[in-house]
Every structure is written in C-alpha cells, then in structure tokens.
C-alpha cells in the first residue's frame, strides 16, 4: 500500500525551508543598509572614493544566488511530485461540483449526495487515514476548492475536471471558495467532518437509507 500524503505536513516542511532563508536574507539586507546609513553618514564636504564596480564579488554573489535557487527548486519539485500524485488505488472517491454559490458532494457508486441549503453550508464527510480521490468541476463560473487546514486548494472550471488526492486526520475543518465568483463568494463555504473509517461507513449507510426514503416519498 502507498504511503498517505499529508498535504499540511508537506507544506510545513517546505515553508520551513523557504521562510528561514527569506528571513535571513531580509535580516542581512536590513543590517547592511543600517550599517551603511550609520557608518557612512555625510559629515563634511568631502567626496568619497568612487568605484565602478566589484566584478569578482558580484560574480561570486550571483553564483551563490543561483545555488540558492537550485536548492529551493529541488525542494519545491520533490514536494510538488508528492502533493500532485494521483494514487492508483484511492480508498474513496468524491465528486465535487461547485456552483454559484454552493457545493455538491457526490459519492459515486453509493447513491449519496450532499448539498447545503439556505441556512447551513454542506458538510463534506470523509474517512480518516484514507486517500480520498476528488474530481472537481464547476457548473458556472470558476471557483476554487480550498481547505486552509490542509494547506491545499484547486480551481473548479466549467466543462473541465480537475482530479486530486487528499488525506484527512480526525479533526473538524472548514472549506471555502477561494476564487472570486460573484455576489455570495464570501459565504460559499462548507464544513469538513473526518470520521474514523468504521464511523464513516455507518454514516454512508445512514445517508443511503435516508436517500432511498426521500426518493420513495418523492415518487
């Protein structure tokens, strides 16, 4: 069985490389400017020594920058390969349809569909510690499926499917639309409920039964 990919952990690890380098660079530049301003304040009417450039130092410096770029990209590429990987054997499939302004979650083969209503947003129910395959599409304009807790989002386009895998730990989270989509964009949220696999199977069974009852009453 393939290892589960925890997008949040991947993000944290990668940011753990980028952020300290960024802070160090900012610190060095701030310190150099402060040093220059304090040490080389104009005092008299003297002309300072002039120079055209420091070719050797600059060439070495450019090489250092290039090395940093290579190191950052190497980490980015390996992380992206893991985050974007599509598993051969997902534990569950969920079809997500985004629309103005809400979400529909369908569990194919299970005859279960979740949609919110005017009073409350829909809840995306998933099993924990399972690779969940999402197939995402929009019914109208572009939306974006974002679960901040998982540090992951993917855009939903009309007439075009996007596929990605996510895994969940046992915790409540919220998801929302991240791509501006008109009037009620800000309210286009959903809740995420991750259940232990046995509980998830119970939930699925209940939903199926309720769906059948509803189906019968409607016909």
């Amino acid at each position, binding site marked *: 069985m393939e290892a589960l990919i925890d997008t949040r952990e991947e993000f944290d690890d990668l940011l753990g490389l980028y952020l300290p380098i960024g802070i160090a660079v900012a610190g060095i530049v701030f310190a150099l400017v402060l040093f*220059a*301003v304090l040490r080389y304040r*104009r005092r008299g009417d003297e002309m300072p020594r002039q120079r055209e450039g420091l070719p050797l130092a600059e060439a070495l410096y450019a090489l250092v*920058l290039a090395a940093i*770029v290579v190191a950052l990209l190497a980490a980015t590429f390996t992380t992206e390969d893991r985050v974007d990987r599509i598993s051969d054997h997902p534990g569950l499939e969920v079809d997500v349809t985004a629309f103005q302004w809400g979400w529909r979650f369908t569990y194919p083969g299970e005859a279960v569909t979740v949609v919110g209503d005017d009073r409350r947003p829909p809840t995306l129910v998933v099993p924990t510690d399972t690779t969940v395959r999402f197939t995402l599409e929009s019914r109208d304009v572009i939306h974006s499926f974002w679960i901040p807790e998982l540090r*992951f989002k993917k855009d939903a386009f*009309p007439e075009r499917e996007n596929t990605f895998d996510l895994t969940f730990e046992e915790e409540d989270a919220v998801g929302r639309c*991240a791509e501006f989509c008109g009037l009620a964009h800000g309210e286009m949220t959903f809740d995420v409920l991750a259940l232990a696999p046995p509980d998830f199977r119970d939930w699925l069974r209940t939903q199926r039964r309720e769906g059948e009852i509803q189906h019968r009453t409607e016909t």
Partner: protein
Amino acid sequence: MRGAEIGAGTAIAGRVPSGGLLAWIATTDHKRIALRMAAVAFGFFLVGGIFALLIRTELAEPELQLVGRDTYNQLFTMHGSTMIFLVVTPLALALGVYLVPLQVGAADIAGPRAALAGHWMVLAGGLTMYSSFLTDHGAGKAGWTAYYPLSGDSATPGTGMDLWVAGVILVGLGLTLVAACLVATVIRLRAPGMTMLRVPVFSWTMLAAALMAVMTVPVVGVAMALLLADRLGAGIYDSAGGPIAYQHLFWFFGHPAVYIMFFPFLGITAEVVATFSRRRFVGYKPLILALAAFTGLSMSVWAHHMFTTGQVVNKYFSLASTALVVPAGMEYFAIIATMIGGAILLRAPMLFALGFFLQFLIGGLSGVILASPPLDYHAQDSYFVVAHFHYTLFAGSLFAGFAAVYYWFPKFTGVMLRDSLGKLQFVLLLAGTNLTFFPMFLLGYDGMPRRVADYAPDAGFTDLNRLSTLGSYLVAIGVAVFLWNLYVSLRRREPAGDDPWEGHTLEWATSSPPPRYNFRSLPPVTSYAPLLDRRIERSRGGRGSGRGGRR
C-alpha cells in the same frame, strides 16, 4: 564636445499652438504632457485611495456594516483597476516622459504627438471605466483580472461591465503609445557622446519597462476586445478551453505589467541613492545585464498566477519565476554597494528610496514563496497574496514614486518641497503601510480569502483586520501631509536653483524648470554620471589633489 548645440529642437518644433486653452490641450512639450499625466494619475490615486479606505472600514469588523456585497465588489474591482491601469503604470511612464529626454540630452520626446494622444487616451479610458458607476447595474465588479466566465454577459450582465472593459482597452492603447515614444527616445534621440552604456540607470529602467509595455500591453487589449465581443454575443471564450485561454492572455500582460510597475521605481531608487551617497552608481554594467535578463524572463513567468488551475506546467513557470532571484539580487547588490563607502545624506528623497528598497524586499521575498506551487496551493487567492503585491506596489513602487517627487520636484517647478514635512509624511506612511499590510500575511496564512466583504466573528480574523484598518487611516493622514506640503511649498516658494542635490545626470545641467527645448548647451557626456565626472574634475583641478578621482 563641451557646449554642443542642440539642433534637434528646431527640427521637432513644427507648428506649436501659441497660447490659451488649445496650447494647454495640444502641447507637444514632453514636460507639460508628463506633468499632466502625473496629475491625472495622482487624481485617480486619491479616488482609488478613498475606495481602499471604504474597503478597509468595511473589513474592520466582522459582518456587513458600511456597504452591501455588490457595492463592495465594485469597490475592490475599481480600486485594483484604478491603481494598476490609471495610477502606478501611468505615473511610471509620466516620470519617464519628463525625465528620459532630459537624461539622454534630447530636446523633446520622440513622437510628441503620439505621446500626447497616449495621455488623452489614458484619461479617456479612465473616464470610460468610471462612467460605469452611472449605469443601472453599477461599475465593473468582476475583479481587476475580470476572469471569464464571471466577466461574461450571463454572470455579470450590464452596460457598466461593458464600459469597464472598453475603458481598459483605451487605457491599454494609450499606455502602449506613450511607452513606444519612450523606447524611440532612448534609441534615437541620445545626445552626442551618449552611448547606450552611458544612458543613466533610470532611463535604462524606463527603456526596459517601456519595451515590456510595448510587447505585452497590446495583449491585454486583445484579451479585452475579445471579452467585449464575447459579452456582445460573439461567444469567443464560450468553450471548455475559453476560461483558461483568457487567463493566459491576461497574465501574459499581467505579469510583465508588474515589472513595468517595478523597474522605473528601481531606477529612481538607484539615482537617488547614488546622488545622496555622493557616489557613482556601483556596478552599472551588471545592473544593465540584470535588467536585460529580468526583461527576458518577465515574459516567461506569467502562469505562476495559475498554479492552482491544474492546467499549466507548474514546474516550468516555477523555475522561470524563482530564477528571477538572481537578477533581482544583483540589483540589490548594486544599490547596497553604492551606499557602503559613500557619504550618505538622509533627506526626504533618500528616506523614501530606502523605504522602497527595504519594503519591496519583503514583497519580493514573499513572491519567492508564491513561486513555489506547493506553497502557492495554500497562499493563492488568500490575503497572503494581497499582502505580497501591496508590499511590492504600495510599500515599494509608491514609496519610490514619492522619492521621485521629492527628488525631482525642484526640477519640475523650480521650488523645493519642505523636507521636514516630507520626513513627517515618510514616518506616517512607513508606520501606516506596515500596519496595514503586514497583518495580511498572517490573515492569508490563517485562511482568509481575498475579495470578501465580511468574515465570521468566530473566524479569528477580527484583531488583525482592525490593525490593518487602523494602518490604512495612518496612510491617509500621511497622504494629507503630502497635499499640505504641496500647498505650502507652492505658496511660500523656496527657490531650488538648477541643481539642489548635486545630481549626476544631465537633467541637473539645465534650468529648473527646463526651457521648452530643455538645454541651451550640454556638458560633455563622459559616462552615465556626467555631472559627477565634471564635479570631480573641478575639485581635482581646484585643490590639486587626487582625492575623489575615478578609480
């Protein structure tokens, strides 16, 4: 060479309307065109700033208080499109229109009538965009990016959106014309002795920016013209590939546009730092090389705005975008190397230039994070992005814009701006800017999306939003101090003289303001800092010592 007469002026002069309203409307003097472009841009800046204050006031507390959601969507759309299309880009070009002919020792801009037409088209386009407020459905409200299908006729119906799109087309045409004149000026109208490697840093950055504008602004014109046709029923983007095609066209312009709004301000900072350090700009040639590399790469990075679409080759655009670290780092190196060993005077222009330098760094470093797809998967379309581009455009470009105003105002008008008020304005803007925009990094990381009018009270966003709103009011006070400074300085005039800062470049060799055709005579152009050369030459001759000589 000394005192070479300028013959170009008489050749360009032609028929010039002599006085009255027509002369004001139809002047072909690049300096008057430029000042008007800058004044129009500043007017739009104040309006766009009021939109920003309304947005910040709405966001100070959870839920809706001040405006409805529809109005809010119009406000941020018009704020963004105003600042990009009508403020920062035109302001950059206006500084170029004024200063590039002077810096290269030309009598006028190349194609003054085209530049004039460009200026009027930008204004007309701006007014067209703003006329959308008068329509039934309200102004443009699909964001400044106007992604399709949201910007299509079925999702956003109404004449207002049509007018917004038409306005952007007009502005784009105007900006392209002005940029083309700047390119031609640097290529064709340089004074005798002014080789390409003696063109001052600011004019080089303007050349690079204008080249990018000429190559990419027409693309947004096409994207918008197709969008207008689509809205009128042509169904151009109405297919499975249409929405992503629109994004490609938009960002092929949209990302170089970011550097069009960066380069000239980097050039300003370079000039100001060199002058206020009394130092020849260090590392001129590597800087030109870095600019060229940057300009080339700028047209291969656009899809880093599209990492989350799942429809682009993320790694290629991540590679190209991250590679920009190298030329950007070289630019930073050159400016620091100019300061270290100089004789630094901290007047208002220098403070604003350093403000640009350090704050843009934060914008740039956060940009490196956004260039990494797995990090962008979280940050994209969150307040992290809003923080990032405001650090580049507001904390960056606009600070350098103020550096330019404080530095060249004496040249434009012949009078000095008050330095003490400038310093007060700097402190207010510095505090306000960071208070406004730094919390947005944290809000984005915590999951606050951009382009929303409200947020839940229990989302944990309230405190940081309050800080941010408070900061925006400080910015407003800072801008008010600037207006006061303009008023006081023009009312009780302190004459500036030709060269109040001991400038390095040719614009300081003529009167303030310069005469109609700029120069009565030109000093010899010996390098990219001809006036510094002359000063060193004279101090050597005067004192008979070798101090301060060129290497």
